């Protein structure tokens, strides 16, 4: 299963090589051109049969994780987060350190040794360490180099009737969907980008937008889902099992209204349930792509993920499959509505 394979590969922001190699190998025979740009984005191109406009689909390859920043005299590894991680989920979690995948555990001061006021506060990231089973600094230094990446050690598992649990669903889910979509050929020119360093500030997508210069871009993401106890209904960002998510606004972009409505109408026509994201927080590659060159019409379609950015994100396979169906339908409808799309893009071409 594609999603399972993808989530089991480690690719913390800045070290996406293995994810990139895998995706490249899987899609190079079904696209017309494929390249890796200077900062590591994988960009594939599939020429259209009529080439009237350019559509870019984008998902990021990187995942949140950590990086080795030092050693303690007792052989413990010091580390910093790469991307946004809630420190409260970390103690006791298993990690894999470096390319060799050295096993380790995130540790902190045990509760019976903590003072009363320490217990009342959340544990700070600074007071945690990674235990790789060494008891001397020089031992640890031999096994682990400074700057090595650290990924969550978490297996893909099926949960209940139709859910799965895995790390890195944000955004291997998007990668998997785009890889499937590349099997088809359309009238328009189709580009797909698998970007790097999204989690540390949408860095890969900033140069992808410039290189591809698309007319329309759709970002496919794993997004936050907070339909859990103790959250008020109006604060649910999305709900599991209610279908793919359309984002009107987040911190980085307002979706283009024409493209968003087009996706929504397509969902209605094909009887696919969709939901709107109810919070305006977070952000994704759409923000940077929208503002490359003379501007790009963008939208985001996402799959809800509970406990995102943790080692155990939970996703509904039904949502994942219907996100794929929705995107298939959208691309087909883009072909069927050439005239409408060209009218929508009027004046939008960028020749600079």
């Amino acid at each position, binding site marked *: 299963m594609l999603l399972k394979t993808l989530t089991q590969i480690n690719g913390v922001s800045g070290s996406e090589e293995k994810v990139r190699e895998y995706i490249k190998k899987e899609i190079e025979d079904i696209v017309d051109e494929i390249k890796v740009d200077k900062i590591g984005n994988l960009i594939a191109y599939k020429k259209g049969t009529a080439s009237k406009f350019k559509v870019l689909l984008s998902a990021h390859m990187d995942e949140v994780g950590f990086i080795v920043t030092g050693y303690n005299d007792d052989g413990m590894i010091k580390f910093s987060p790469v991307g946004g991680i809630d420190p409260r989920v970390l103690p006791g979690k298993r990690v894999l350190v470096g390319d060799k995948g050295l096993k380790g555990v995130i540790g902190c001061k045990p509760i019976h040794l903590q003072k009363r006021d320490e217990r009342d506060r959340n544990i700070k990231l600074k007071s945690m360490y990674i235990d790789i089973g060494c008891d001397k600094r020089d031992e640890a230094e031999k096994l682990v180099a400074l700057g090595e990446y650290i990924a969550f050690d978490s297996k893909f598992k099926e949960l209940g009737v139709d859910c799965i649990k895995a790390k890195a669903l944000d955004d291997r889910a998007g990668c998997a969907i785009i890889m499937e979509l590349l099997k088809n050929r359309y009238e328009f020119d189709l580009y797909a980008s698998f970007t790097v360093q999204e989690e540390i500030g949408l860095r890969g997508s900033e140069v992808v937008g410039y290189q591809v210069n698309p*007319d329309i871009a759709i970002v496919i993401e794993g997004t936050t889902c907070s339909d859990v106890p103790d959250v008020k*209904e*109006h*604060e649910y960002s999305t709900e599991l099992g209610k279908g793919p998510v359309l984002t*009107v*606004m987040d911190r980085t972009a*307002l979706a*283009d*209204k024409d493209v*968003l409505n087009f996706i929504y109408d397509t969902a209605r026509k094909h009887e696919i349930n969709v939901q*709107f994201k*109810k*919070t*305006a927080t977070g952000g994704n590659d759409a923000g940077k792509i*929208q*503002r*490359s*060159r*003379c*501007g*790009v*019409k963008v939208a985001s379609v996402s799959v809800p993920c509970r406990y995102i950015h943790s080692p155990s994100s939970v996703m509904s396979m039904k949502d994942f499959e219907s996100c794929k169906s929705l995107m298939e339908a959208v691309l087909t409808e883009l072909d069927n509505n050439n005239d409408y799309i060209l009218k929508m*893009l009027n*004046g*939008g071409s*960028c020749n*600079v």
Partner: protein
Amino acid sequence: MFETIKKLAGSFGVSGSEEEIREVIKSEIEGKVDEIKVDALGNLIAVKKGSGKKIMVAAHMDEIGVMATYIDDKGYIRFSNIGWVWQYFALGQRVMFKNGTVGAVFYEQKLKEMKDLKLSNMYIDIGAKSREEAEKKVKIGDTACFVGNTVMEGNMVISKALDNRSGCAVLVKTIQEMPETDNEIYYVFTVQEELGLRGAKTSAFGIMPDMAIALDVTDTGDTPECELMEVKCGGGPAIKIKDRSFIAHPEVRRLIEDSAKKIGIPYQFEIMEHGGTDTGAIHVTGGGVPSGAISIPCRYVHSPVEMADITDIENCVKLLKQCLKG
């Protein structure tokens, strides 16, 4: 001038929903320029052809507002901010959706302390009795602006959205009076400035100007017990030295100052501690664009009772016209 400001400030144009204000501005300037276009993000670009330097003049046409994020069973609407909306300014105000639906903004009354007021414990009441009834008028993702009609008191204009329809009015008037110049002028009414200078970035890339001037409002330091600031209403156009988004290019700053001296209008210098403007994005476009800004002193920015001196605004038109000749 007042009629133009009233017309522009009264038009709907929350960031991302600038369709109505764009059409209003377009109708005001049609026939006065050589070309009018709208780019992929929705920026309105009016071009006056010429053989000289390419000068970009930018004023953002979007305004702050709110967006519906959730409608409950009783028809109350939860919302998120578009641009910087202070919860205390929003409390007790009216908002208006694009289709004219008006709602009252209020807070969950079990809230004990006003310091805990947040937009997430506030709601919009459009008088609907159920979710179904509310959804007939407002959908998730719809935006609303604050209500605040445009009036004159003495020499002061009071209105919502003087940020930045007063700047748009300066551009519109300048275009209508067609200053004589050999330079190629790109008058750009930008989108989504309030969300991070987004329209300015893409429009500047498409133009690649030799120089840019932004027209926007600035805070003032002339109200009781306010933060110290040199700028005051009635003191003339403010020539920007710096804000959070950029430092004015010394030569552009000098051009603006020399222009003001030449036509003999009062002017003042502005250093704004908070906020930025379109030139923040424009000046780092391509290989860099020398940029400056002319600001309209404005009290109570981002509230529905923004206030500016109409003589300052009129002087901005005179000043901009002189700058474009140079």
